[in-house]
């Protein structure tokens, strides 16, 4: 399963998805969100919804000097935070900007394709689909 943006034109920029993702960690706020919604050059132009595409051969994982990502053979990654040295190589390697950063732990945040965000998008912008 992977997270997919089905129609970013319908996105209103409410960030409900980001808040939902972040809540998985038992906190409020946006500290732990694994996705990002940014304006497409100002709100008047709409929004870009940036999610991880669950690559089969993920450049982010390849760029990691300490192999902190476990790669799912069907696609997608999982971070082992205990290995991560906080170098941000993964952030540079994903040209979508799909890896987020937790400022407090100084570690990356990578989507686990769980689909919680989908449940909280009021406008059906995102979906969980088969690989």
């Amino acid at each position, binding site marked *: 399963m992977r997270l997919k943006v089905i129609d970013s034109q319908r996105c209103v920029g*409410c960030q409900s998805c980001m808040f939902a993702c972040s809540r998985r960690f038992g906190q409020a706020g946006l500290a732990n969100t694994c996705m990002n919604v940014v304006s497409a*050059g*100002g709100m008047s132009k709409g929004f870009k919804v940036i999610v991880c595409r669950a690559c089969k051969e993920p450049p982010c994982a390849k760029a990691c000097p300490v192999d902190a990502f476990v790669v799912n053979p069907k696609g997608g990654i999982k971070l082992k935070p205990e290995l991560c040295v906080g170098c941000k190589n993964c952030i540079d390697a994903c040209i979508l900007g799909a890896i987020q950063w937790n400022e407090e732990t100084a570690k990356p945040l990578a989507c686990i394709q769980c689909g919680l965000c989908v449940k909280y998008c009021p406008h059906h912008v995102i979906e969980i689909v088969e690989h």
Partner: protein
Amino acid sequence: MKIENSFSKVLYIDLSKKTFFVEERYDLFSKYLGGTGVATQLLKENCKEGADPLSEDNTLVLAVSPFAGVFPLASKTVAMFKSPLTGDLGESHAGGRSAISIRSTGYGAIVINGKSSVPVYLSIHNGKVRFRNAYTLWGMRSCFQAGAIIRERESGSGIRAIMRIGKAGENGVAYSAVTTETYRHFGRLGMGAVMGSKNLKALVVSGKNSIPLADKKLYREVYNEIYDAAVKSDVMKKYHDIGTSGNVLSLQKIGALPTKNLQEGKFEKAKEIDGVHIAEHYLGRRVACAHCPVGCIHIANIREPHPNEPYFYKTAQVSYDYELLFALGSMLGIGDEKGMLKLIDEVEAYCLDAMSTGVVLAWTTEMYEKGLINIEQLNGLELKWGDWETYIKTVEQIVNQPNDFYKALAKGVAHASKIYGGEDFALAFGKNEMPGYHTGPGCHIGYAIGTRHSHLCNAGYSLDQKMIVDGTKETPQSIVDSLMKEEKWRQILSSLNLCFFARGIYTMDVIKRGLKSVGFDLTEEEINSIGEQIYAEKYSFKFREGFSFANQKWPKRIFETKSPSIEFDPKFMDEALAYAEKKIRELL
């Protein structure tokens, strides 16, 4: 992190010295929650008594709350300052990403004092403050451009708020606004001019602090309740579908749509400027404030051809809601919806408050029509109802203030009418220009005694409606009692940064349990008493700065143009004022 640390730090900025410091103020947040409650205290502590609103002695406070970044629709930052328009309490609320970003950068409130020697903007990321030179942004015609430039320079894409003023604020127009995220405004009482007088062009704020919770299980429960009510029930339907702009025809139907400076309560072209018509022909996109699943911001696309180049078009994206359609539509007799949208775009580019601008233009038109001002005073602009092209030019004059007359207009309709006459039809209450409801005595009393930013969302409108529908006969006293009761409750809503559109969702029970989940264990009585205290504290600031009930005058026009509710005369209204004063003094 302790929960209270996550919302109770106050950032103090001194623009004169370009210094800042942070202080723990749990004393204030534990007593007044946040938002309005805390901002009132910080304003009282920092703003010098009798301060000139456009001097370094004024203070600008931005306050969030334990609900910001925690619950949906807790999106409205509360700004407080001494108002250059009314000379007393200035309160203004705006959404966008402002509340979430202030909380997430680590502060519960930001207090801005002093005045910078050069134009600056403040950049606050992850709690770190920088003063940046804004010289090159000063004097730029459009605040959209200034926003775009800051956007390119600064980090925090997706999670930042860019709160900026336009030329109106720089030039000290007493009803200039502050725009955030292109389409949201700290409107009404002149926050733009306060920032302008401090040489402060903008604030950029971002952060991603985590926010701890006291009771995670309860939190999830309350969160889902609120979220479901916002997206699945009918409570919010009127805000997301057509939006408030559908009010044009609702008010038209009952004859409460202020038209041509309230000479009438009906507008023959109401249909053209109503939300349904605009949605059908122009609606291009809907946008939301951060953490609001509703998405009530409606944006119209207008396409115009270049005046002398073929196949050359520009498209503007203009946000609209009821207040704009009334103020820059029916109030000015503009029934050409495209022209109205262009006028709105112009007003927004200068970052003026749309309601006040509309009321000022309407008064000026009537003054000219009646021969009380002449064409020289207007600098050659021949104002006529419906003529949006001339109104666009007039707006520019208000911003640039080339002569004494325009200088007076820039101070508001109450000020201008004192000099030039026409006070009977200068539609301001406590020097603040009227919003778009002429439903009856309830709304007008509400404008006059309200303590909040816009005086809009007072309960007067629904009281009037009840009288229209059920035929109930309210007295001056019963109206004041209801308004005051609701006002006290709404202090709680704004102290928690809640969008007033969500007041149907945020019942006492929801608020109580929500507060518990973030570490406030309060009873209903305690919550109500906090609301009452905040209400009283705001009045005490108003009185401190010279507000007096005796100075309140009713514009004659509200009695001349019939409203759909019960009959009311000056005696009725004065009785209400006297009773309100008595009741309010009892609280102090």
